[in-house]
């Protein structure tokens, strides 16, 4: 009789469920996973090293490209670290805008997560449903920053500009008749804030829709319940954060524990799970949809009532107004200095972390007093999650690996950096 041995299966990097470029070397006994060995680095772009050779402001755009489904949150972590070292604080309106866009980003991220997770487990309709809502939020991104994905909207000292008063409209094309255009532009008549408010009003119904498809679906439950269980102690040891940690029942959320931006002024709850399995993490993220929606609503109300500056007025750090530059020598010099040399950070180091949709995202900046960081270290939540892969999948079946990848909400931009 021939010797029976395990076989290795190369899962990825070009696998449909690899969420980009995950390469897993699976050692399998039939369908059962004995060992999962994640290989990272296929999407390494050297973000941290690149940042060392650029003035601080020019690296904000790189942050977008780390976790490319929650762009503004990445920026927030970096910008906060810079502000900490500069010893400045953004104007309160800018802080509210940041809070609102952090939550919009959280919804964007979770929408992609529920879509991809659904698709991984085989519920492909979720993906399209999620993208329907994502499209609206992408339009909001575009309205404020000009880019649908890589916004570069947060700057040290505030945000790039105030929220516009007009929401861009759809235009007629070969594929859209007048009636279509009228329907598409229905909620775009007012300002961007109106559009966001309209979104927050309809979004809870959309979440209900997702939940009717999945939450009580027997197959969905069979595929998620008791898959990839992490105990709270083990989750802390592994360095899991975000929903991966809260799913295990640890109530840890930087928005509450180390409030930044305006989170201490707002009313929201932190959902936690009990069993630490994939299904609990699913429920936690579904509830985060609703909580984020609630936060956005409060921010919209505040922003409506309180106009004000959105950028710090120290022009050594933030660029002066365009019209000032036309007549004011000082302003022109400031702009020239900022655009060529940037600004110098005092010697020292700082770590700033935010509650990113995936977990704790932190930036550790070391400065030697120059206009570029001496070292920038990005603490990406996905990397820590990835290292738990073996532990979460051991003993499960091949199909569960896909569920676990989905529940981790892995994006390789941040894992490989």
């Amino acid at each position, binding site marked *: 009789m021939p010797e029976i041995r395990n*076989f290795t299966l190369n899962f990825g990097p070009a696998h449909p469920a690899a969420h980009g470029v995950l390469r897993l070397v699976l050692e399998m006994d039939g*369908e059962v996973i004995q060992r999962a060995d994640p290989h990272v680095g296929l999407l390494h772009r050297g973000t941290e090293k690149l940042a060392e050779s650029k003035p601080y402001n020019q690296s904000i755009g790189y942050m977008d490209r780390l976790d490319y489904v929650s762009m503004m949150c990445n920026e927030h972590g970096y910008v906060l670290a810079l502000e900490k070292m500069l010893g400045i604080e953004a104007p309160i309106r800018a802080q509210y805008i940041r809070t609102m866009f952090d939550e919009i980003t959280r919804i964007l991220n979770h929408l992609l997560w529920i879509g991809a997770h659904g698709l*991984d487990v085989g519920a492909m309709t979720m993906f399209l449903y999620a993208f*329907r809502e994502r499209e609206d939020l992408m339009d909001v991104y575009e309205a404020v920053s000009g880019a649908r994905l890589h916004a570069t909207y947060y700057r040290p000292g505030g945000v790039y500009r105030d929220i516009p008063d007009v929401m861009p409209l759809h235009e007629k094309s070969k594929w859209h008749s007048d009636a279509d255009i009228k329907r598409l532009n229905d909620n775009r008549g007012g300002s961007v804030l109106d559009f966001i408010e309209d979104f927050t009003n309809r979004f809870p119904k959309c979440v209900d829709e997702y939940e009717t498809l999945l939450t009580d*679906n027997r*197959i*969905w439950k069979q595929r998620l319940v008791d898959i990839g269980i992490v105990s709270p102690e083990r989750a802390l040891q592994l360095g899991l954060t975000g929903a991966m940690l809260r799913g295990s029942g640890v109530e840890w959320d930087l928005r509450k524990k180390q409030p930044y931006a305006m989170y201490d002024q707002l009313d929201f709850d932190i959902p936690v799970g009990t069993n630490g399995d994939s299904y609990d993490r699913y429920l936690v993220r579904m509830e985060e949809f609703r909580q984020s929606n609630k936060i956005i609503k409060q921010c919209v109300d505040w922003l409506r009532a309180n106009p004000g500056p959105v950028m710090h007025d120290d022009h050594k750090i933030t660029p002066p107004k365009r019209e000032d530059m036309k007549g004011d020598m000082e302003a022109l010099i400031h702009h020239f200095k900022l655009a060529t040399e940037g600004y110098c950070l005092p010697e020292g180091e700082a770590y700033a972390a935010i509650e990113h949709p995936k977990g704790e995202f932190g930036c550790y900046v070391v400065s030697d007093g120059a206009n570029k960081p001496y070292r920038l270290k990005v603490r990406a939540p996905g990397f820590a999650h990835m290292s738990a892969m073996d532990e979460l999948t051991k003993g499960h*079946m091949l199909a569960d690996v896909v569920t676990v990848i989905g529940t981790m909400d892995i994006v390789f931009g941040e894992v490989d950096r």
Partner: protein
Amino acid sequence: METLTTFLNSFLPEGLSAFIVIMLKIVAIMLPLILAVAYTTFAERKVIGYMQSRMGPNRVGPKGWLQPIADTVKLMFKEIITPTKSSKVVFFIAPMLALAPALAVWSVIPFWDGGVLANVNAGLLLILAVNSLDVFGIILAGWASNSKYAILSSLRVGAQVVSYEIAMGFALVGVLMVSGSLNLTEIVKAQGGGLLGWNVFPLCGLFVVFFISGVAETNRAPFDVAEGESEIVAGFHVEYSGMAFALFFLAEYASMILISTLTALLFFGGWLSPFGNTFADTPILSFIFGDGFHWLLLKTMFFLFCYLWFRATFPRYRYDQIMRLGWKILIPVTLVWIFGIGIAIAYGWQPWL
């Protein structure tokens, strides 16, 4: 048909004319079937598209109606790539082996009273036997591809089809007991007398089991572990391209249509109208509401729609969960049901007659 046979007999030897007639009948069944397969793929993309609040294909031809044609042309001109370390002969035999049974089964399917290629008296048995040959094509394809994903898929299919074949067989036993015949035309005729005569009422449990195992048998969502796009990429046909892949595709959709037709024939009275003879006396209504092929078509389309509906709604089962469902739920249900029907027949209580 009769006139054609006599006409051919007038100048050809009898065997040859019979052969020609059979060939013509085969073409008459095959062509619409292939066309139906093509447009089932189109319908699938459209229906699922609208379920997912998007458009589906709408660029090729008016409203996208030429999409399946474009797809076929594309597949025909694509290169068929053979993996270097595959067993070449088996690699090419496999898709044919998958398609042939899926088409052969249609020989015993009646489309209306007498509209059948071969009216054999053990048609049901033949369907079961030939349909289960499908799996060989898939297993061989997985084996010949020399890919770990493909072989995993083959193993899954093997196990899945064997288990669901049993549930399906038992469900058919119920039908056989109620209608007292293995001949499909007889089975349909036994369901006469309008809506209430249909087998689905005495056999509703078996109908559910049959349709579920039909979905599993054809490897469609939520039982598509054999293809399991997000797990084993495309499973057994991961290494196939061009027409070789198209044959698998064709086989899958032909089986889908077959299962839908069978469901309609066995449980929903086939071409029989749900109104029975109510409208037999009114001239135009008797044509529309009377028995006829259109009823079979309508019922088949409904079940095909259910296939697409499932696909848009459900997540995919895990491999071991499919096994559990098959062995621990479906098979016991059929056994109990058959037992119940057996007792009813033994004591002469047969309300379906």
